[in-house]
């Protein structure tokens, strides 16, 4: 992407060159808004009639009842980037907003919002607000490009799970407006009843194949996200959560027993010929839409094409497996605020005062075709399909948006493919994936146990407090205990801690407490110190002379 950055810069430079050459010093590389706001020209909107002005907590609109929009320059401008579904809705609000508050709303249609934003925001060209899915926000938060969002007294009007999705390290970064998750579809001509378990799916599906009505038991539209509700029914998961409810990259579930069992279920089906060998998304959707399979797991994005196919369908919750009912991944669409904008307060006020209203939220819901994250709109939803999606997602897991997730997707996919194509057993494939992902997450020093502290420089490290210093790395003994040393140290007071994988992400302090206090030890005279670490209790024993 640096190429793109460079390219943008270069284009700007060339423009500046051209300008400088003919016009002299006036070159200003500001990107003009691509879409002109629907400004005052055609909008003498009587604000009182159709503006969704929020409850009059404050003095409302300065006498704008029937006077046209004041000719004076707008008091402010808000730039929003949204995709082709959301942009027209927001664009339609611009005249009302201008009339009500004399603030210009510039909506720009973008397709690769996250990538463009990542380039534009650091150079000060980003919009004030972007509308994206929560799983795209993780890297933006890590890069410091997003601002905290305070929903104020409207916080209770949004679904907790949706807010949780864009909460990183306890800070809320979005105002959610829609959630999305997959659900279980069946062809009601072939399978009138919703299957309660995956065994029921198999029995019914095989009976239909036996009758010659169908080709396969079920369509499979993908290896990872799309098959996740099946994996969870067998007890599979991706990341566990720590006590505080944050995703824990140390607890990886790709090679968990449940995940292996889920993959085995699919691989066995392929081997027996009851599941398609190829899991291409479009091809498998076509299987369902032509009545060649009775079941499919699909998301709300496929609703339109399934409806258009004319197949009689019904939507239900996911069948249960040994670990209970299958849970899909859930995603949240939300409004995020550019942390580098100088309009953060205005953007916040726009979201809480203007967008978080029944009218706007309902308009967004109607155009988006996703269950609303705004409770009043959600409760008013009367589309039975979307209601069924909501029900199927009631136990959904929010898709982890942490950076470590980037290491998961590709390796997870490869492992499932290898198991499906019978190149490896599900156990081998998933175990391999686990090893690969773990080593990516912890980097070069994966598996290292170290005792970083104030003694390290004396023990041959480049400096103190270095969790990745080889010189003080511990070695594992036959008794399962890790040891290091002896190190010859001068008299004095020292502090140290236990750190895993060459970093601070996982570290133990006094009493084996995670992120606990430093261990302290003193030497009255110069002497040799050694350390013993017990991985079962996470306790460190310091042997001083």
């Amino acid at each position, binding site marked *: 992407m640096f190429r793109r950055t*460079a390219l943008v810069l270069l284009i700007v430079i060339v423009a500046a060159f051209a300008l400088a050459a003919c*016009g002299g010093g006036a*070159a200003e590389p500001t990107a003009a808004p691509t879409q002109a706001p629907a400004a005052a020209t055609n909008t003498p909107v009587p604000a009182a009639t159709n503006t969704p002005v929020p409850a009059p907590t404050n003095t409302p609109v300065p006498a704008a009842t029937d006077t046209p929009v004041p000719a004076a320059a707008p*008091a402010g401008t808000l730039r929003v980037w949204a995709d082709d579904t959301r942009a027209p809705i927001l664009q339609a609000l611009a005249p009302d907003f201008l009339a009500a*508050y004399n603030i210009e709303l510039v909506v720009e249609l973008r397709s690769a919002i996250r990538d463009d934003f990542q380039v534009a925001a650091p150079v000060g060209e980003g919009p004030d607000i972007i509308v994206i899915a929560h799983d795209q926000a993780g890297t933006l938060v890590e890069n410091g490009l997003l601002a905290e969002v305070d929903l104020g*007294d409207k916080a209770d009007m949004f679904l907790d799970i949706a807010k949780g999705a864009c909460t990183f390290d306890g800070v809320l970064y979005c105002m959610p407006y829609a959630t999305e998750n997959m659900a279980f579809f069946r062809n009601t001509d072939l399978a009138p009843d919703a299957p309660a378990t995956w065994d029921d799916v198999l029995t019914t599906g095989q009976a239909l194949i036996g009758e010659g009505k169908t080709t396969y038991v079920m369509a499979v539209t993908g290896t990872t996200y799309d098959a996740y509700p099946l994996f969870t029914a067998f007890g599979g998961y991706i990341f566990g959560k720590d006590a505080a409810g944050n995703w824990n990259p140390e607890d990886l579930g790709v090679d968990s027993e449940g995940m292996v069992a889920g993959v085995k279920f699919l691989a066995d089906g392929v081997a027996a010929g009851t599941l398609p060998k190829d899991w291409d998304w479009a091809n498998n959707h076509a299987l369902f839409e032509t009545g060649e399979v009775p079941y499919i797991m699909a998301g709300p994005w496929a609703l339109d094409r399934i409806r258009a196919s004319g197949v009689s369908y019904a939507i239900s919750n996911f069948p249960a497996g040994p670990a209970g009912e299958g849970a899909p991944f859930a995603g949240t669409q939300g409004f995020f605020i550019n942390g580098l904008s100088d309009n953060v307060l205005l953007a916040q006020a726009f979201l809480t005062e203007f967008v978080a209203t029944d009218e706007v939220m309902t308009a967004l819901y109607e155009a988006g075709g996703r269950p609303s994250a705004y409770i009043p709109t959600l409760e008013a939803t009367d589309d039975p399909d979307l209601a069924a999606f909501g029900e199927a997602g009631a136990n959904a897991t929010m898709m982890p948006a942490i950076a470590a997730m980037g290491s998961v997707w590709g390796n997870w996919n490869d492992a499932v493919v290898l198991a499906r194509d019978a190149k*490896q057993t599900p156990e081998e494939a998933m175990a391999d994936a686990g090893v690969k992902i773990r080593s990516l997450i912890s980097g070069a020093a994966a598996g290292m146990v170290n005792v970083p502290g104030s003694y390290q420089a004396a023990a041959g490290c480049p400096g103190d407090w270095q969790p990745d210093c080889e010189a003080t790395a511990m070695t594992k003994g036959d008794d399962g205990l890790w040891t290091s040393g002896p190190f010859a140290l001068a008299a004095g007071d020292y502090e140290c801690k236990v750190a895993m994988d060459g970093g601070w992400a996982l570290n133990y302090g006094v009493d084996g407490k995670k992120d606990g206090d430093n261990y302290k030890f003193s030497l009255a005279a110069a002497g040799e110190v050694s350390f013993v670490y017990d991985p079962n209790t996470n306790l460190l024993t310091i042997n001083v002379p």
Partner: protein
Amino acid sequence: MTLATKSGTWGIRGPSESMFAVLVRIILIALFDVGVIWFVSNAFAKGFTQLGIVLIVIALMINAIFLLQKAYPYRWMAIGLSFLILFTIYPMLFTFYVAFTNYGDGHLLTKEQALPLILQEKYLPEEGKSFSWTAYRADDGKYALWLVDPSGATFLARQDETVIPAQPGDPGIGEPDGKGIPQSIEGYTRLNTLLAAADKTLPTVLFGAEGEQTVQIRSPSAAAELQQRYIYDEAADAVIDQSNGDIYNNVEGTFATKDGKTIRPGFRTTIGWKNFQDFLTNPALRGPMVRILLWNFIFPTVSVLSTFFLGLGIAIMFNDKDFPFKKIIRTFLLIPYTIPGLISIIIWRGMMNPEFGIINRTIENWFGIDGPPWTVEAIWAQTAILLVNLWLGYPYMMLVCSGALQSIPADLYEAATVDGASVWAKFRKITLPLLLVAVGPLLIASYVFNFNNFNLIYLFISGGPPIAGASTQAGHTDILLSYVYKLAFESGGRGVQYGLASAISIVIFIIVGAMTLFQFRFTNMWEEVSENV
């Protein structure tokens, strides 16, 4: 330069140039310089040092060329040279530079951009209070805030004046509205939240007298007794957390405490050979390198040879004057060349789908056997890629060979026929050697192109099928470039890593460069070309 020495003086004025023309020239250059200086200072201020330096170099060059009479001939090349520096040399140098930095997700901003972000962070001290607020504005642009704390107590806060407890209806304060907020304050106009928020300076305004309790707006629903959280100690290059005294030192582009707490965001900085080291030694990145490299050599070699010989064969057939329907057939044969590869690769992917693809369906219907597992078995996937590339590549070779065949003098063939040479002998002794003189460099170019043919590899099946038991995410048809892409941009751990990607692309550059040099040297291509031209 011979041209320069003819008119060569170091003076500014040309031999037949009027003073007016000289003046205009100097003024135009001065204007240009003003623009450059403005731009360069901006580039430096935002931390784009390298770009700034390159611009200075270009500006100096342009100045010299347009001012000095001796450099007169270069005026015709000035624009071209500038673009060469800007678009070719600068990106190359920048890639080298990035290879030694941690540029990537988590370290996207320059330090100049990251520091203000860190420093603008506020915190609420333990004894600090938080309020809901309503803003009022005076005619002189000053603000007043009506504050309500969680217990319901109300205060009036103005700029540079002590925050005082106040009630609606107090002197100068209007009657309360439905929510208990005064409708007016003497000297001020009440604003709604949005209108107040439209003033970008409002969040920085301190309400309350200096040295006493001060309140700042932090969000539309809250104003609080905020303090700046971090201060930057330039001498130590460290950030100090005022809320608890923690010291965060600059560790490779991240402010981190001794015990591992870090502040987001990190910033770009140089980290030496770490990216190269990581790639060469870290088992999580190195992966099945030998296998990938091997395929990376097989793929372009077979591609170039197969496309060349197919293209040559067709060209020779068409070289026969009596070939029927030559033009129409040739037009059809050119079609693969005219469809954008992006589209045809995806179409091929669909057609070669082992289960649903038209090719395997046809095989199944006609012969009653399963078609080859194109995307599942390594050897078939590689075959599929080579076939697709043959389809994509032969029209180019056909065109090139057709042209080159025309240039071979017909009398050579006549003489050979007189000598009784066979068709094969004529091809081997006349056609091929003379053709290679012209086409040889193109073959090498084609080889280099295919060596890095990311489009085909990635669009076809993203390098799949995966290699079982590999230590990284790698596939049987992955070439170095697609493998690096997966590593540095898709699954390499912490998001996008430009630094690592640059380091590896330099390694690829060295491999390709060495190979090309080797091929040119040992085929003596250039010598023969010069002899024959």
